[in-house]
Structures are given as C-alpha cells and as structure tokens.
C-alpha cells in the first residue's frame, strides 16, 4: 500500500475494518476554475461516509473524481489496491485507461438521474456488466441479479423495462445494478433528489439497510435526517476543501467550523 | 424479331460466315474471336428513337438499327445482346469493354473519329426542318431570326451553331440567317412542347422520320424545305478498347458493304422509313 493512512477526526465506530479507498490531494480545475483544492479521504470497510455542503462546493465533482468519471488534475485514488494517478491529458493513454477501468470495477456508482439502460429490462440492466465484464455465465449472473433485486424489493419487476417503473423503482434498480458488480465501495450522488417526496422513502430505506448490513459507501446528500441516522462519518465541504469531518452528532449538532454552522442554519431554515 | 433477317439471301450469310471464320484463324486475342467464342455480341442502343430503336411492351427491342444489328450478328454467326447506356457515354469512347459495338444511328463526325472507329455509313438520315403551324412559316428562309428547337448535343444543334463537321466530308445547307437555338433534352421534347401548346420557338429540326411521326401523332408542325443535310450514320467501335478489334472492324465493314450490295439495307430502310430508301443520299 502506498499511502499512509489518514487519522479520521473523532473516534472510529467499532464495526469498521481496513481502509479500502484512499484519495490523496485531489485537485480539479475546470479551465481556470479551481473546483477541488486538495481533498484527502480514507474510507474503511463497512463505513458509511456522507458528504454535505452547499451547492457548487464540489461534492459531485469529488465523487466523480473518485472513479475517474471526472479526471482529477492532481492526486491519486486507490481502491482495493488498484491505484490510478491523475493524468489530465491521458484520454489517449491506454495504460491509464485500463487502470481506471480496473479501479472502477471496485467502485459501484448510483447516479442522481438513475441512467438505467432503457433498452434492457431491470434484469438486463443488472446482468449486462456481470456477464460481459466479470465474465459470469448467464445463470450465475441472473441468480446474482435476482438476489439483489429482491434485496431492493423489486423481485417482481425483473422483466419490466425502465420506462414502466416509477422513479423510486428506477433508482432501486440502479442500486441493484451497482450491487451486482459486488464492488468494494458504493458511490451515491444525491440518490433521492430526482425523486418526488413520496418516492424518496423507498430509496432511503434501501440505503439505510445497506448501511446497517455493513456496505461501504460514500453518499453525497442533502437529506440531513438521513445523514444523521445512517452515517458513520459526515464530511462538510466548502469551496473545494473539507472544512469539517466527524461523527454525525458532532458535525450536525455541534459544528466547530463557522461555515458549517452558517450552512446548517440556512439549511434547516428552509426545511 | 426483325423481319429483316429473313429478307437476306442465305448465300450471303454463308459467305460472311466463311469470311469471319478466316478472321478467327488470325488473332485469337481479337475481339472477334472472343465474341465468336461467347456466341454473343453486345450492342449499345438507345431505345428512345423510333423508328430506329424502341421497345415493345414486352421489353424486346425493335426498329431499323435493331434489325441491322441483328443481321450483322447473324452474318458473324452470333446473337445480339442489347445494352442501353446513356448516349453521351457511347459517343465519348472509353467503353471499358462493357459492350462491343454501337449500331445506334451514330453520325460520323470528325471529333468522334478520334475516339471511335467507324464503318462506312449504313444509311443516311435527312435532317428535316419544320415549323410550328402557329408561326405560319412555310420556307426555310422564313426561319431567319427565329428560334429553332433541337435535341441537346445533336448534330442538329451543332449544325445550327456552325460547328458540324460530317465525317464523310459532305456539305450542308446554310443556316437561316440569325436563327437562334433552343435546346431540350431530346428531339421528342421539342415536339412535346409544341403539342402541349407551348410556343417557346418557331422551328424544329430533327430527322425526317421523327418529324413525320410527330406530325402523325398530331403535333402542329409542317415540314419546310428539303433536307438541310444528310447525316452519315455508321457502326462504331471503341478505338482504345482493351482487346484489339481490327479483325472485328474489318469483318463488320465487309458485312455492311455486302448488305449495301445485296439490297438488305434497302429492304430494311423501306420497311422502317415508310418506303423511303435512305441507304444513299438523295
């Protein structure tokens, strides 16, 4: 292992294990816009990390840098022993692309807009990558898919096309699709913000279960209630850096940083 | 098809076959040998020109050119396959061996002789001037300063423009003073235009048989004057075609001479051109 482990602020919950994801000194420029200014993160097994912060603070960008959907300008990411370095001009560098691809195998991503494949059924969405990337045969891939579809409560929708699912159901299929790759870490970007209030419950419930069952996950969210209940650690970002970090009780109830306090005040006002 | 074949004496056919046989003894690479081997000669034709070449509703070809081609083939001992490429491609040479011979009433002109090899003329078409009834014109001179319609890129157009050079060196009548040229896609389009009731032009120049047919079909035109020139029309070969064709050319030249001599061409002409003998200029 290359990186020296970071000492997380506050004590660790007892159920967490070894570090599975390391991100070091992640910086990201969009043109001259310095969006991430050196972010470090260690995530341990079975840990649920929630990232909060105001709009434009760089939360989404950071999450996308973790699996290189956005190429960081500086820094590196290591997931389960696969490390990829920032390579801002590496679009045509085959070695880099292959490293990134292997890194992604261990990082399941659930998008805000679901991004299900509309031409495949729920089952097809879940078996496509396991069969073609992990090389499972159809029978085993379908077993796996059925197991995870059942876990998110959609066993009976396995043969539906996405166009016939509700928003909450779509988001749950997206979660199942990510789970079917059996990744070490799950990345969620505001998984409920495209849903209407009725559907949010469905998805949050599944995520809470995942957290309690010990999935390792990093979640960008605006749902403070959810963060309070399901997070092992909350990270507050502002202008591309981590301002405050610690157990939810501490960050959400007794923030030390002035900016965190201001943010939470504004936020709770609206709700 | 083509009753012309039965009109030819059997003896002539026999002699031609023997002549061709002696040719094949010559160069086995010559087009003639290849044609004989295949038993088929490919002849280009443009079936937009009755009575020289047109199609029957069943798709078979008929007309004067068709009969001539069939007779030539018969005397070569082969059968004909007709091909219908665009005329402009036939006259420009460079056939790429897609067809072997053109029996398409092609006027022998000096420029064409640079890219094509011609036989002697197998007949002559009189170029007949006509005028629309509406114009009231009845003489060639009456068309001075008037508009005359011709098919695009025809010898008629070149004559009106003063650039026509007939390949047999024969002379042509003077163009009416100040006549202006109007072109349409084909000769028939000129007739169609008058028949539709348009009056974009007063005169129309085409072959006398085309003019006759148009009058018969009700086109409001009258013939004016005698033919302004006679086009010599020959059988043509691509002169830079890949297989050498000198033996084929010689054989066909001989056959055309024989067909003139034994009256076959005259018979065919009378059959297709309302009894007129166009095998000589007159």
């Amino acid at each position, binding site marked *: 292992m290359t990186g020296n482990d970071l000492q997380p602020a506050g004590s660790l919950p007892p159920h967490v294990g070894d570090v599975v994801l390391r991100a070091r000194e992640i910086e990201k420029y969009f043109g001259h816009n310095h969006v991430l200014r050196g972010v470090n993160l260690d995530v341990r097994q079975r840990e649920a990390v929630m990232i909060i912060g105001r709009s434009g603070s760089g939360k989404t960008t950071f999450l996308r840098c973790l699996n290189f959907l956005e190429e960081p300008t500086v820094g590196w990411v290591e997931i389960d022993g696969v490390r990829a370095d920032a390579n801002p001009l590496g679009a045509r560098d085959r070695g880099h692309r292959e490293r990134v691809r292997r890194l992604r195998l261990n990082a399941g991503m659930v998008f805000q807009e679901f991004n299900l*494949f509309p031409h495949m059924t729920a089952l097809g969405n879940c078996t496509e990558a396991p069969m073609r990337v992990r090389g499972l045969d159809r029978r085993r891939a379908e077993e796996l898919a059925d197991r995870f579809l059942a876990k998110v409560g959609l066993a009976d929708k396995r043969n539906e096309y996405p166009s016939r699912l509700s928003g909450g159901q779509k988001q749950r299929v997206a979660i199942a699709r990510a789970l079917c790759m059996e990744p070490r870490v799950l990345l969620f970007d505001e998984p409920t913000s495209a849903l209407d209030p009725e559907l949010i419950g469905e998805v949050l419930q599944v995520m809470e279960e995942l957290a309690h069952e010990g999935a390792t996950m990093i979640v960008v969210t605006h749902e403070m209630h959810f963060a309070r209940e399901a997070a092992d650690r909350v990270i507050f970002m502002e202008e591309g850096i981590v301002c405050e970090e610690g157990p939810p009780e501490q960050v959400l109830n007794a923030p030390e940083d002035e900016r965190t306090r201001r943010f939470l005040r504004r936020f709770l006002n609206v709700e | 098809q083509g009753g012309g074949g039965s009109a030819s004496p059997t003896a002539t056919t026999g002699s031609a076959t023997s002549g061709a046989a002696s040719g094949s003894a010559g160069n086995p690479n010559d087009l003639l040998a290849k044609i004989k081997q295949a038993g088929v000669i490919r002849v280009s034709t443009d079936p937009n020109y009755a009575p020289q070449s047109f199609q029957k509703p069943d798709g078979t070809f008929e007309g004067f050119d068709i009969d001539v081609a069939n007779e030539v083939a018969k005397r070569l001992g082969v059968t004909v396959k007709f091909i219908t490429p665009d005329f402009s491609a036939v006259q420009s040479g460079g056939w790429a061996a897609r067809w072997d011979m053109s029996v398409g009433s092609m006027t022998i002109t000096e420029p064409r002789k640079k890219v094509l090899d011609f036989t002697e003329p197998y007949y002559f078409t009189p170029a007949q001037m006509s005028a629309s009834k509406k114009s009231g014109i009845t003489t060639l001179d009456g068309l001075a300063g008037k508009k005359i319609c011709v098919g695009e890129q025809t010898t008629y157009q070149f004559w009106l423009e003063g650039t026509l050079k007939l390949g047999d060196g024969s002379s042509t009548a003077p163009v009416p003073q100040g006549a202006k040229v109007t072109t349409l896609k084909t000769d028939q389009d000129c007739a169609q235009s008058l028949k539709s009731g348009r009056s974009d032009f007063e005169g129309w120049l085409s072959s006398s048989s085309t003019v006759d047919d148009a009058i018969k079909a009700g086109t409001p035109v009258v013939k004016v004057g005698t033919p302004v020139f006679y086009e010599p029309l020959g059988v043509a070969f691509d002169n830079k075609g890949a297989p050498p064709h000198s033996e084929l050319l010689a054989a066909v030249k001989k056959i055309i001479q024989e067909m003139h001599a034994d009256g076959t061409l005259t018979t065919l002409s009378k059959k297709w051109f309302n009894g007129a003998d166009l095998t000589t200029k007159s």
Partner: protein
Amino acid sequence: MTSAEIPASGSGPIVERIAAARRTARRLWRLEFALVWLALVLGIVWVLAATGNVDLEFVQTWTPFILGGVGFTLLVCVSSIIGAVVLALLGALGRLSANPLINGLASFYVSLVRGTPLLVQIYFVYYGLPQVGIILDALPAGILALSFNYGAYMTEIFRAGIQAVPRGQQEAAEALGMPSRLVFRRVILPQAFRIVIPAIGNEFIAMIKDSSLVSIIGLQEILWRAGTAGRPILKTIPAFLIAALFYWVLTIIFSFFQERLERRLARSDVR
C-alpha cells in the same frame, strides 16, 4: 356537431357517453378526411382524362413493361440502403473519432460526397473508374454510387443519433467498468438506432426516387422505362404519370410499414 348536447343526451354513465361522442366525432373526422383525399384523387384523374392524358390503350399496353422496373428499383434501393447503413456506421464512428487521421478521412468523405451531385457520382463510378482499371457492371456500379452517396448523408444522421444518446448512458456503462468498445456496442448503438429509424426511413423514400438516376448507366428502372415507352410515340406525359403512380404507391406502402415500426419502438422508448 355542437358539443353542448352530448353530456345532456343519452343514458349510461357520463364517461361512456363522452367516449361514444368522441368515437363518433373521430369517425366523422376520418370520413371527411378520406372524402377529401378521394375528391382530390378523382379531381386529378378527371383533369388528366379531360386533357387526354389518360389513354387507356396506352396504359394497358405499357403498364406491364413499366411495372417491370419496380423489382429493379427495389433491388437497387434495398441493396443500396444496406450498403449505405454500413458506410454510415463507419462514417459516424470516424466523424466522432479522436484520431485526426480517421476523423479527417470520414469528414472528407462526407463533405465530398454530399457536396457533389449524385448524377456525377454515378457517371463517375461507371465511366470514370474503368480508367484506373476498375470495371463494374451497371448494377453493382449503380448500387455502389447510391450506397456511397446515401452513406454520406446517413453518416450525419447516425452521428447525430449517437450524440443524442444521453451522456449519462455512457457514464453509467463506464462506471460499471465496461471497456469503450462494449459501451458503444451494447449501450450507445442500440439506443442510437432507435433514434435514427425515422430519418433512415425518409432516406429510403428519397432513394426510391433518386434511384431513377441510375438509368444514365443503362439500368432499366421505372422512370427510364416510362420515358422509353412514351417518348417515341409522344406520350411522355401519360408514361410519366404511370411511373409517378408506381413511385407513389411504393412510398405509401413503405411509409405504412415505417410508421408501424416507429410506433412500436416509441412504445418501449419512453425513458
């Protein structure tokens, strides 16, 4: 009909009465619509007959001959559209390639072929290529020229179709660790195909008529046969009318199938 009566009159639940009234109105509408078409068709036939352009004897004699070109036209069109789709796929990939060599080739092809008349292209393939030793028969020459021509136009259609697949689809596939070939083949292409089907249908209809240009190299398709039949006896207009009728019927039949296909795809295409 005035609508005020509907809810008042009749018996049964209001929803049934409204549905019935709607059905009647719709039927009436269709009837009126059909009558307009009928009147127009009859009007055209009448004018044609009055001006002596409907010559039944001519029609009887020549229709079979002209009809003989239909098979030919279809053969040319179907072969060409297949060729064009293949070329268009390669072209679109090229136009989207990051490789300047491939991109340059593809965009040159599109520019040159879209920039010059089909007639010149056909002429060139048939009469020009023999100069460099490539001698093609009329049929393959015509199909080749049409394929290249329509391939260029369809390249742009395919490119637009591929670009219209939402970016999230690619990201979702990449996040699952799929290599780029697989992403294209399994995720992008199937969705792009659905998007471009209507445009391809239009091209096919246009090609049915453009194929008449191949007559310049001696292929005896519908329009050429009509001209040949009509010109020598100065009946070009009746002959062209017969040809036009055939083309019209062909496109109507084709449009019918195209619409059905589109409607079928539209059903499962809702995202």
